[in-house]
């Protein structure tokens, strides 16, 4: 009899706990989420978004990083990281064209647009009765952390995002303190597209690549060009004679050997001293949490003695 009572009490406690649990977690979801987006639009969600379509690779990476990966139901063509994203249905995005029919069919409760999207695209989706949040590109890493927290607010992942931001901040601080005593800043040429070796495309001022190169203790030789993406003449390249060449186009099959074989490039000190490195461009071009990975990777290349053992 006593045993029965103990079991009943245990059962009741269990029931109470399970009954309480959803109430406790559902509490914040009851009030609508209102956030102003990058186009100065006030976006209102009745509750944390559970069916999200991401229109930019950076947004997809942010969502996964803050633990909202399972809340994504669609992604754009370019979202290839993390690899789970590839299993989601694509809603287009190549040639700036999104498949509006497919997005409508998926019935998302939130479409997360990014800096690569135009106000017209946001309007087109809004006119279809879809809630769109435009996440503006960050200008620096602090801004990126703010973006992470904004997305966390929309998806109900605040605590996870807080932990992520704390660890990212710690890694950025580690880079900064490692590079504190740097006096020699190597000059860097970052190649985006070298299909025409006489006029390769590079990352100019205003790009994340330029920002991160500087932050990682390097000097971007294209900092004086105009435009985020700019063509630099080979003559200027020879004149500047960078210490380091980074191949952001390595993913397209450009190799260190090919660069050395380009006519006239063998005179560059970076080629002669074998300081030409393939580089994962996604780490420095996508305004998502992997920018910090990019920063660390750059610092390790620029200052192997100071930052070589950073994670």
């Amino acid at each position, binding site marked *: 009899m006593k045993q029965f009572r103990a079991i009943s009490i245990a059962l009741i406690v269990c029931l109470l706990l399970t009954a309480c649990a959803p109430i406790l977690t559902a509490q914040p979801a009851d009030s609508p989420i209102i956030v102003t987006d990058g*186009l*100065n*639009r006030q976006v209102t969600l009745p509750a944390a978004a559970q069916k999200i379509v991401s229109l930019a690779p950076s947004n997809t990476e942010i969502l996964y990083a803050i633990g909202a990966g399972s809340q994504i139901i669609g992604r754009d*063509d370019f979202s290839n990281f993390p690899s789970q994203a590839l299993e989601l249905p*694509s*809603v*287009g995005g*190549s*040639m*700036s*064209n*999104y*498949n*509006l*029919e*497919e997005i*409508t*069919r998926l*019935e998302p409760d939130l479409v997360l647009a990014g800096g690569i999207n*135009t*106000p*017209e*695209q*946001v*309007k*087109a*989706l809004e*006119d*279809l*009765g879809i809630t769109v949040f435009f996440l503006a590109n960050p200008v620096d890493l602090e801004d990126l952390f703010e973006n992470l927290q904004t997305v966390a607010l929309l998806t109900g992942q605040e605590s996870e995002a807080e932990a992520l931001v704390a660890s990212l901040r710690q890694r950025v601080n580690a880079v900064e303190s490692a590079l504190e005593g740097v006096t020699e800043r190597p000059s860097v040429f970052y190649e985006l597209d070298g299909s025409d070796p006489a006029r390769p495309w590079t990352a100019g001022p*205003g790009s994340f690549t330029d920002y991160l190169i500087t932050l990682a203790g390097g000097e971007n030789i294209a900092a004086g060009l*105009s*435009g*985020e*993406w700019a*063509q630099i003449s080979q003559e200027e390249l020879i004149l500047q004679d960078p210490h380091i060449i980074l191949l952001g186009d390595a993913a397209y099959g450009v190799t260190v050997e090919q660069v050395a074989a380009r006519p006239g490039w063998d005179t560059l000190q970076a080629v002669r001293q074998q300081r030409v490195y393939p580089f994962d461009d996604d780490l420095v071009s996508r305004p998502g949490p992997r920018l910090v990975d990019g920063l660390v990777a750059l610092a390790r290349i620029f200052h192997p003695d100071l930052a070589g053992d950073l994670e």
Partner: protein
Amino acid sequence: MKKPLPPYWISLALLIAALLASVAIGSVTIPPVVLVNLLVARLGGSGLPTPESLQPFSTILFSLRLPRTALIALGGAALSCSGAAYQGLFRNPLADPYLIGVASGAGLGAVIAMSVRWSYTATGLLAVPLSAFAGALLTVFIVYQLARVRRVVPITNLILAGVAVSSFATALTSFWMINATGEVRRALVWLLGGAAMSGWQPVLAVLPYIILGTVILLTLGHALNVLQFGEEQAKQLGIESDRIRLAIVIAASLATAAAVSFAGLIGFVGLIVPHSVRLLWGVDHRRLLPLSILNGAAFLLLADVLARTIMAPQEIPVGIITALVGAPFFLWLLHRAKQQLLW
């Protein structure tokens, strides 16, 4: 001898088929039964609310496919009608609606507008089409003024001024694109003739200009016929070629500028549709212009269906399709006509 089917009926049937295809085919498959039910419910005004499960289909149909179909049909009609009129006016088979600067002007206007970060307001959202429209009309105006010798505008001057100003505007566009940050891909897509829009606003915005332009052109069929004998003869037959020329330039520019402002620079339609109509049904402009309208709409609709499906779910700019499919078709038609010694 069996009488051939009247061209109007063939063209109308083709247009209806193209309209149906454009509404029925898309990257999302809507079951035919659902499609018909939704259309009947909406058109019949039964007032019954759409069931929850069909809501996405209803949105896709009424906010995406129908307005897009209307916009594409209007664009195709405007471009081929203007093309037919220009070929007649300039008595040059290579003339197309972009000959005297509409396209390059619209392109420059659009690219300039794209390089500005507009605020999220009604004006900001319409900045690109408005700027393209204004750029197109302004360029044609400049060309017309440059070509004028006192009070007359010789045809040769008009063509040469058009080519020169177009090249200049195109160069400015390229220069602008290289210096602009970030928007290059978007500009490229626009210049290739592909821009996604939803809702009826764009349709309503271009409708008055396209109707005005094409109606004016339709009334000038007889005058264009007479102009084919040369300006002297036209004068003797009571046609004031100066005024006709101005009317055609204004009407065609209005219609073409409106057509490209939202949809982007769709090439080739204004060239091959009128020529195909000529090869099939003769050169009488009173018939050529309306038939070009019907077939231009049908051709662009079918090209758009291909653009939407050929690489689905990805969409490619419709301008690529019009040239890719249009050119071989046109060459086949030309070859056939040669065999029959009609050309």
